[in-house]
């Protein structure tokens, strides 16, 4: 029952987010528009799915673990660190 409720609420949240992103944003920031603008800026689970992976900080941290685990590095380099730019 709880799972079903969570799925329904998640579906509603996604629909609200999609509907908001298609509509023009509020003209002004006021107490009345605060929550809508905040919702538009709040990152969704889909947008943050990459955070389910533990990205090591920098080549050397990755190298230490890659050598110990005998695995290749999947190395993502981007100006300013890719984890900030989406």
């Amino acid at each position, binding site marked *: 029952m709880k799972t079903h409720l969570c799925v329904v609420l998640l579906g509603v949240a996604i629909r609200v987010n999609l509907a908001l992103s298609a509509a023009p944003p509020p003209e002004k*920031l006021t107490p009345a528009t605060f929550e809508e603008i905040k919702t538009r800026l709040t990152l969704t689970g889909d947008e943050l799915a990459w955070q389910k992976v533990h990205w090591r900080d920098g080549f050397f941290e990755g190298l230490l673990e890659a050598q110990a685990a005998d695995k290749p590095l999947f190395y993502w380099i*981007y100006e300013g660190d890719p984890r900030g730019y989406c």
Partner: protein
Amino acid sequence: MKSRRFVCNDPRVRQLLEQFIPTADNPQQYRLVKSTRAEQALEYRLLYHALMQTGFRRGLEDSWHVQGMYVITPSGKLLAGGNRPMNVESALADMRKGLEAYAAMPRAERLLARAPHSRTDRMFPDRQPPRPPDGGLVLRSTARGLDVEFVHEQSDLAPDFYHIDRLWYTREEAMQFLPSVLRPGATTQVTGPVLDGLAQLYLMAQGAGSHFEIEHLKERQLGSEVIATNGHAVSLRLTGRVVSEADNDVIRKKYRADLLGYLTYNTAEQRFTRFDLLAYGKHNVPASQTKSGTPASMPLGILFTLNPTNVNDRQPPRKLALYRWVKLKAAQPGAAEQ
């Protein structure tokens, strides 16, 4: 979802990543290597050699201009990869190609002869990674353009993209959000580096300059008012406005933002348990990022919240090196050089 994160948000990519050590990096720290000792460090040599095999050879030699996703062995050999961060199929193909090549390599070729020393093989063995100030306030900022008309869809300023960063305040700085008396109706003005640093480093879209000079801040005001108390919980409202304008060779940005925020401070725990501050207003858009090819302005929002606990959120502010310049105190010794 057209986010640049598209590749790493893809479930197939995330599943394949289990066979790798996923690593994120920023070229800036290598760009600052000036000494022969650092250049000869295993950390630098291995990476430089691997990236010289990419299409960024010239950029690397000139100024460490390099980006992309690559499969690299612990021994420093480049196996696959490229700079197509929004192309999932390409990333998947590179990952599979890299795994096949790795599996086919003799152990002595794919691994270093000895394990790297966790300190002495670093470029800067005595440098400590920057840490947030003890007892301070750690916020995450999320910036997103909300225009649905003018900006072309591949622009960083389109709503499908976002930019996240961290903001560190010392405890002393964080306390400036609180009036001296925590009773309903009590007010204070947030001034000095706490507001100026926020405006100079964070209240802007990405690109075309990293920071405003103080003289670029045409208006800046932020007030804090206690709106309610409930036991140890003190609820506050922040209201204000920042207008910034710069148009020179270093920075070309204009942002007129209203500020509104809701905070909760717990007097028993002596910490903020809620921090939701919004900046919202019109920001200029360069012609290169508009559908029409002419300059425009668009709604840009920036949300500051308490930093989440995900391991990937444990990152220092990107502009920490500029903290001293704007007189924010959270930059620690050594951080400015990083």
